[in-house]
Every structure is written in C-alpha cells, then in structure tokens.
C-alpha cells in the first residue's frame, strides 16, 4: 500500500543467484525507522546472523533513502550506504551526496538490499522496474573517475552512479563508496563490502513521481527554502571557504591534528588554510539539491582537479606535516580515485610514520614526505608490499606491531578519528568515543560549543548532555530523514523546517521530539548490534585513544600546555553519558530503556547472546 513520503518499496538483489525482487514494507516499519540509517540498521539487524564474515557473501550492502531524500528541498541529495563493517566488526554506515538519491526514489525505491557475491565483477543498471546485472570486465581495475566517466558515456550524465575504486576491489578495510555527483561515503569499509561482492558500480535512472501528501505545498515550500538557504549562504559567505575555514580555528585553539595527533598546532598551518584554498580554487562542486556548495576544487601537484574539504586537509595535510596545498590535493585525489577514505588514510599514514619515528617498526616513511605518501597510497589500494599492512587500518596495524602501539593508534572501535586532536577536549573526546560506528565527527561535533561556551577543563554532565543532543540531531534526524546537516549547522537554518518537510510530504503531524525519539531508538539498536556481535562488550570500547591521557604527550606550549585528559574524570563523564541515555555501566541500553524505545523484540533477540540489565 503506497504511503505518502515513501515509495513503499525496497529492491532486493542477490548477486549469487541473480534474483531480483521488489519488496514492500509496512507502515509500521516506515514509522519506526523512517529511512536512511534507520532502515539500514533494522534490515541488517533482522537479516544478518552475528559473527558472519563482513567480507563474505553473508554480509549485505544496504543503500537507504529517507522520506525527504531526493525531493527539491534544502540539501536532500544524500544517500546512506551501510553494512556490517569489516573495519570495526559492528554496524557501519556513511552518507554521501549523489544523484542516486534522486533517481532511486524516482525509480520507485526507498532502498536497495544487495546480497550474496557475484562470481565475476558486475555492475547494476536500474531503470525503474528494469534491473540488469551486467559484466563489469571493462571497468574492474579502474579508478573511480574513469569508472564514472565510462558509465556516463554509456548511460548519459543524467544517471546516478555509485562506484568503488581499486581500494574497494582489493578490500582495503577503509574503502568507501564514491559518486562524482557528490563525494564519498561509508568510512567503515562499506566500499570493501561492495568490492567483496564483486560489485563495481550501481547506475540508476528513474521516471516516476514520489508519493506526497501535498505535492504543490511541498514544491512551494522546498523551492522557496532552497532560495532562502542560498541567500543566507551568500550573505554570510560560508561557502567561500566551506568547511576549510575551521582549520585556522583548530590551529588557534590547539585542536589541529599534527604528526599523528602528537601536536595540536603548527606554524605552517596557514599554508593549507581556507583562505589559501579559496585563492587556488578552479571549480566548485555540490551535491544534488544543494545551494551552499562546499566542494572546493584546486589543481593538485600533478595538475589534476582535486576537491577538498577540512577533513581531507587536516588528515592528509597537517596530520602528516605536509603543508603544501597542491601536494595535499594530490593525496586527496589519489584517495578519491582509489576509493579509500581520506580521513582513515591520513590516520593510517600518520600512525605508520609515528610508529617508525618511535622505533617500533622499520620503514622509510617520514612525516612531511608527500611523494612517499603517494606511493604508499597506491600500494595500499593494491595491497602491495607494506600496503597490505596499511590496508587493514590502524587498529590491526597496532595489534601486529604490539608493545604500546595501540596507545598511539588514533582510533576508536577500529575507525580512525576525524581531524580533531582531543588530547585536552573532554567532550569532543567523548563524542568520538561514543560514536556508534567508531570515531567519526558526523555524529556529534561538540568541540566549538565546548571550547567557547564551557570550561575546557570541565568534565561535567552538561558536556555529556550536549554530546547526546547533537547525536540526536546529527546522527539521528539527518541520518534517517536523510539530508545534509549543513544548512542547520553552518547557516542556522532552523531544525523545525525538517519537521515541516517531513509532515508536508507524509501528511503526518510529528514534532521534532517525535523524530528525536526515533534517533534514540536507532542509537540503542546500534549498541545492541555491537552486543550481539561481542557479548563480552565493556565500556573500554567507548574510550578515546590512550595517548590523549598520557602526560608525556602534553603540549609544551600554547593554550593547553601541560594538560591532557584525566582517566578518573573521563570515567565520570562517560557515566553521565550512559545515565542520560539510560544505558548501563557497560554502555549497553538497559532492558527498561530498550522497551521504552519499542525494542522489545530486539531486546529478546540480543539476550540470546548477551544479558541486558
């Protein structure tokens, strides 16, 4: 039965058997999980057996959209890609801007469930109800740029494309899914899952209309708001530097990742800042339905066009002590072309250089060596030589190195930290540590609030409260309704607009609090997913990197000289977080919390493996 706001259908494709099935979902499923991350999580929870190999045929790749995804309204061009993560072993996902968002909805689907494993490389071509599984021999082995162009040439530029590069093909554990109409998504190795299925690309074209309760109302509201967001952006000038403006601020307040996050600022940071990036700009890119485009492209060292944002520059630039913008752009280009995550790649190379520097392993890579970094990225994408070691991510590298290497592996749950050095930022460290997919900034970016509106030294419950508030919005609302958070976070576009879009398209009368409850349900189930995979789960999995607590790692000068995180205080902050969320001391939702969020069946299921308090 059609439901306004949703197409009501998911497309299930089994690559082992070649079967294709259009499935309906219930209104209860739609209202409980809304879409995007909610749909992906619930599908993976219901359909995956715990303990399966993330890179085997039993894992499933879910592409999921939400009720406002793809409609003409502010920044609705995002798609969620998800699977059991080969990097972390838990639920993993990411979002990326892509025309697939628009085309898949118009083709009549709110998501894809891709199962099994093709015998040889294939790609999918979805045109409304017609689904083809086609040989990918001509594009397997190509980078994402050439793959995308080959598909555009064959199908025209109006199609939506998701694809992987050599990183995904060779199952680099932090390989991502790419789209030229947006950027990349799926940091916890979702590209590797796609590669493990021998699936090179997904091409989508749709021609249907999306069911809406009030089509003229939604059209007028969405179009008007797109213009308003554009006007605010022009007035504030936000997209002139986009996200990269934050680099200078991090450098000022001692939060910049430098030298595998050993240091928090650098006198040469200005060479790679937003001003320099804007001056070098040759093109600007944005996702579908975006009027505040943040993708700033410059010529890289080799003369190629490379699109940068803060995270790339922070992790491939300052974290590696490479303060040459075209060289940073080259590293970024290679990551994008190979289809590996720029943040994790910067974290891995930083950790590798640090381990060599500390004498823990032998190697020829040093901080600041851009040329060697390029070669190492190539070797990583192909798993050649030492690249095979680097392709497994910092957590596994640290396990192999042994000794105290895990202490300075800048990761949580296996996922490398994004570009914020939190050696003395307790709330942001908590945000990384409690991010349900590993250390990702997308869940709760509390750092500016923390440094400007609270005492940096404080470990008070107000910080835990703020982390949760932001998780509800960023990791909740925007991930399940599926839209880019930038109009809200960067331009102050009121959150109520998103409830208005949701209600206008679905005909429902939900408040923001109703939507936030879905976010809490999703966060609780993500934690139950971890418990089902790891019945001996304990709170140490919610700890930030140990080196941030090490007094010998404190800055010698600057605003946080001599200061690092403190264990006993962090434990209390973590307790506050668990208490506010209604989770036990292990960081697992209590039975009461699970039942209160409508997770009775899920609670019963998880208790087959681990106990709920």
């Amino acid at each position, binding site marked *: 039965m059609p439901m306004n706001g949703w197409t009501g259908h998911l497309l299930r494709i089994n690559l082992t058997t070649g079967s294709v099935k259009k499935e309906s979902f219930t209104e209860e499923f739609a209202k409980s999980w809304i879409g995007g991350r909610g749909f992906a999580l619930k599908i993976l929870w219901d359909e995956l057996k715990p303990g399966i190999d993330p890179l085997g045929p039993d894992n499933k790749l879910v592409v999921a959209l939400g009720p406002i995804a793809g409609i003409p309204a502010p920044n609705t061009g995002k798609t969620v890609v998800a699977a059991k993560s080969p990097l972390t072993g838990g639920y993993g996902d990411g979002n990326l801007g892509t025309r697939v968002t628009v085309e898949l909805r118009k083709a009549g689907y709110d998501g894809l469930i891709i199962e099994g494993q093709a015998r040889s490389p294939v790609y999918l071509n979805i045109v409304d109800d017609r689904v083809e599984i086609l040989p990918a021999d001509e594009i397997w082995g190509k980078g994402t740029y050439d793959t995308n162009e080959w598909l555009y040439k064959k199908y025209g530029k109006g199609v939506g494309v998701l694809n992987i590069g050599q990183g995904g093909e060779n199952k680099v554990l932090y390989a991502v899914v790419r789209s030229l109409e947006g950027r990349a998504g799926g940091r916890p190795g979702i590209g590797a899952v796609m590669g493990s299925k021998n699936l090179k690309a997904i091409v989508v074209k749709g021609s249907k209309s999306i069911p809406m309760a009030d089509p003229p109302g939604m059209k007028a509201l969405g179009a008007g708001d797109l213009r308003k967001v554009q006007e605010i952006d022009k007035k*504030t*000038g*936000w997209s*002139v*530097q986009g*996200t990269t*403006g*934050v680099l*200078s*601020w991090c450098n*000022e*307040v*001692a939060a910049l990742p430098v030298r595998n996050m050993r240091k928090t600022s650098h006198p040469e940071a*200005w060479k790679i800042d*937003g*001003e320099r990036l804007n001056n070098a700009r040759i093109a600007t890119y944005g996702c579908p339905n975006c009027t505040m485009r*943040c993708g700033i492209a410059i010529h890289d060292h080799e003369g190629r066009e490379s699109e940068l*944002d*803060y*995270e790339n520059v922070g992790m491939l630039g300052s974290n590696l002590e490479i303060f040459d913008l075209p060289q940073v752009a080259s590293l970024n280009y290679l990551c994008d072309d190979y289809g590996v995550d720029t943040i994790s790649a910067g974290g891995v190379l930083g950790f590798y250089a640090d381990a060599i520097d500390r004498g823990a392993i032998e190697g020829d890579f040093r901080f600041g060596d851009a040329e060697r970094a390029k070669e190492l990225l190539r070797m990583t994408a192909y798993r050649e030589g030492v690249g095979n070691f680097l392709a497994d991510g910092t957590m596994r590298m640290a396990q192999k190195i042994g000794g105290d290497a895990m202490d300075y592996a800048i990761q949580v749950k296996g996922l490398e930290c994004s570009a914020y050095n939190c050696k003395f930022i307790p709330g942001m460290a908590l945000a990384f540590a409690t991010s349900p997919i590993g250390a990702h*900034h*997308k869940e709760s*970016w509390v*750092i*500016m609030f923390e*440094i*400007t*509106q609270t005492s*940096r030294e404080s470990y008070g419950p107000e910080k835990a409260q703020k982390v949760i508030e932001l998780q509800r919005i960023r990791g909740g609302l925007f991930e399940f309704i599926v839209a880019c*958070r930038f109009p*809200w*976070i*960067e331009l*102050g576009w009121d959150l109520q607009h998103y409830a208005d879009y949701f209600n206008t398209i679905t005909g429902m009368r939900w408040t923001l609090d109703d939507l936030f409850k879905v976010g809490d349900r999703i966060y609780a189930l993500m934690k139950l997913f971890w418990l089902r995979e790891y019945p001996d789960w304990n709170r140490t999995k919610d700890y930030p990197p140990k080196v941030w607590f090490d007094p010998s790692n404190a800055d010698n000068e*600057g*605003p*946080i000289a001599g200061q690092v995180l403190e264990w006993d205080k962090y434990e209390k902050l973590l307790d506050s977080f668990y208490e506010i969320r209604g989770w036990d001391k292990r960081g697992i939702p209590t039975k009461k919390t699970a039942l209160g969020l409508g997770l009775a069946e899920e609670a019963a299921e998880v208790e087959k493996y681990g106990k709920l308090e």
Partner: protein
Amino acid sequence: MFRVGVEAMKIKLKIIGPLIYETGFSEKELELEKPITAGQLLSRIRIQENRPKIMTRNGKAISPKEELEDGDRIAICPLYSGG
C-alpha cells in the same frame, strides 16, 4: 598616534574564515590604547554586528567584557559546526 599618559599595547589579530572578506585582512598586528575590552575591539573592526562569532585570546575563549593585555593574540571566527 597615542595620547600622552595613555598606556599603549600591541596585540596580534587573527581573522578566520569568511570574516576576512569583511575585514579585508586575515592577520595583523594592532597598536591600541589601554584599556580596551574584547567587545570594544570588535566594534572597531568591520564585521557585521549581528553575525554570530566567537573570540579567543591565546587559544582560549574570551567574553566581550574582558580587557585585552599587551601581547595578546586574539582570533575572531564565525560559528562553525563541523563538516
């Protein structure tokens, strides 16, 4: 020029992000008469008054009421919320 008997001081001012296109510079050393608060400094720089912004002194947050000191490094930044 400074008035006789008025104590002078130097500060370094760092402007961040799109605010530099309003002020016309991103980093500058300023000579100022004492006393001056952070808020008073803000009013002397060409930044839209109603634009949300934050200030730090030597890397730490500072309120508009606080007086500046000789040798301070002041950074003015729009409100970011993180990519």
